[in-house]
């Protein structure tokens, strides 16, 4: 399988601290790739570098072979790289209907139109309805997002990334903060993604990681520690040490 997303010796320093120290990561097309590691390992920083929220101190990022290291965040989205956030980043004053419609209009290139009314494009409306249905948001689509229960907001968080129709999707702890009995809904929507969509997942819950991933990278102190298929990573004594050590600390 061809490599879709690649980092070359990626580094990010905050002051004197190296949050990400020389990470070279290859993600293959259609992969279900998990990025795990203890708290503070730099996982979210890697996502922020990949999506352009942060600029790396050194190193390169390649998307489908093209260097996107200095590309603006919104342009990366237009090239098919979308993400979700660990802590919901939503438009609290808009409705789910408006929110999803926004992302779809933007993808279709009609987001900057000022002479048409929202909803005058039937393709956009059809797709909004489809996505809201898929994420169980149809019944609340006219409510203000800020008033929705957390579980629904979490679904919208993921729906919004899906509405960008990404070729590469970065999920930053999609089930974070969601009660146990609502998790399956979110995980089911993630599992139902088309096979050619590449997914990079950050997750703390090892049950989710091992049921989902076909490849796992372990990040410790900003550096890539182990990288391989789940069975291999599970057997690795160093990974056990890191996680056992952490759980003992905690």
């Amino acid at each position, binding site marked *: 399988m061809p490599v879709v997303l690649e980092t070359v010796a990626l580094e990010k320093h905050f002051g004197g601290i190296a949050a990400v120290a020389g990470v070279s990561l290859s993600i293959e097309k259609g992969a279900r790739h998990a990025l795990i590691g203890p708290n503070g390992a730099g996982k979210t920083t890697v996502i922020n570098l990949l999506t352009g929220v942060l600029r790396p101190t050194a190193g390169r990022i390649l998307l489908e072979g093209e260097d996107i290291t200095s590309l603006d965040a919104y342009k990366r989205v*237009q090239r098919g790289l979308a993400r979700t956030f660990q802590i919901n980043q939503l438009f609290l004053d808009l409705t789910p209907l408006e929110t999803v419609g926004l992302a779809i209009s933007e993808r279709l290139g009609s987001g900057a139109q*000022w002479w048409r009314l929202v909803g005058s494009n039937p393709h956009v409306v059809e797709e909004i309805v489809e996505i809201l249905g898929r994420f169980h948001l149809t019944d609340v689509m006219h409510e203000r997002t800020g008033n929705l229960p957390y579980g629904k907001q979490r679904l919208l968080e993921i729906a919004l990334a899906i509405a960008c129709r990404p070729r590469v999707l970065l999920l930053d702890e999609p089930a974070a*903060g969601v009660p146990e009995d609502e998790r399956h809904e979110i995980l089911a929507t993630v599992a139902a993604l088309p096979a050619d969509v590449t997914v990079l997942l950050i997750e703390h819950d090892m049950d989710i990681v091992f049921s989902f991933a076909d490849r796992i990278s372990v990040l410790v102190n900003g550096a890539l520690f182990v990288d391989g298929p789940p069975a291999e990573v599970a057997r690795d004594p160093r990974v056990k040490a890191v996680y056992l050590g952490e759980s003992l600390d905690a």
Partner: protein
Amino acid sequence: MPPALVGKVAHRLATRARWRLLEYAFWLAALASFFLLPNRHLILTEIAWLALFALSLDLILGYAGIISLGHAAFFGLGSYLAALLAKHGIVNEPVLALVLSGLCAAVLGFATSFLVLRGSDLTRLMVTLGVALIMREIANQIPDITGGADGLQGVVIAPILGLFQFDIFGHVAYAYCLIVLFILFLLARRVVYSPFGLSLRAVKGNPLRAASIGISVNARLVTIYTFAAFYAGIAGALLAQTTAFASLDVFSFERSADLLLVLIIGGTGYLYGGLIGAVIFKLMQDWIANLTPQYWQFWIGLVLVLIVLIGRDRIALRTGGVRLLAERITRRFAPAAAPVAVPPGEGS
């Protein structure tokens, strides 16, 4: 997918932009004021251009979240240009001169928009204030052109479209300002209900996420800032044309600050805030100034304090209705029932 639902959603989206009953009432009242209050046309004229000026600020503040203490920069430029175009007979026809003045203000808006892209509200307040001060000083330093501190005298405004001559009672002036206000309001209304307008609210609400769904945040901010500067320039040009005069106070800090006051009175982010605010502000100013000319500032200050103190609940009433207010009250009395789960910190 159910086609019935698609139809319903399309209908729902279409009704977002439907004219509400109160909107008809507002504009009918404005039209009626022209016929029913002929001896109040002078102050109504002032209300009309102030409303347009406030609408301009609402476009950037209420929809894009850009706060400004220097919106008079564009107002003043439009004002001087309209006066100069008429005085030197460069463009005699007022409507054409109006549009030209607005366009020049838009150019200034575009050029200075890059200064407000970054930074906090405080940075933006200072930068916009600075731009207006610079504009005022430039006008002050070229008295050959602007008349300096004496203002630009000897401006004669030609009849509108060659037909309607301005009169001293303000009849033509009010009709002119009201029509311009209405046309530009319709345009602004179209814009805020468009995908572009919706994306502005997204940018205001959460710029990080807006960029993460492919919105070019900076491009949107530059566009709306330029657009708003056009409106402010037109408002300034209306002042110059209806008074046949322009002076340095078109750039003054008080003008920018009063404008914020107008918006605070009327509320932001629903287009009518600036219009209603302008009506209340001018009538209040007129009324109090008649009562106690020397204490006008005292009363307006008091009103401002009161508005800000009760502001939160007023806003709640407007956006979410009684339900939201009720929720807020319930929450205040039962803080333990906060339903929001707190996600783990962004530590990894």
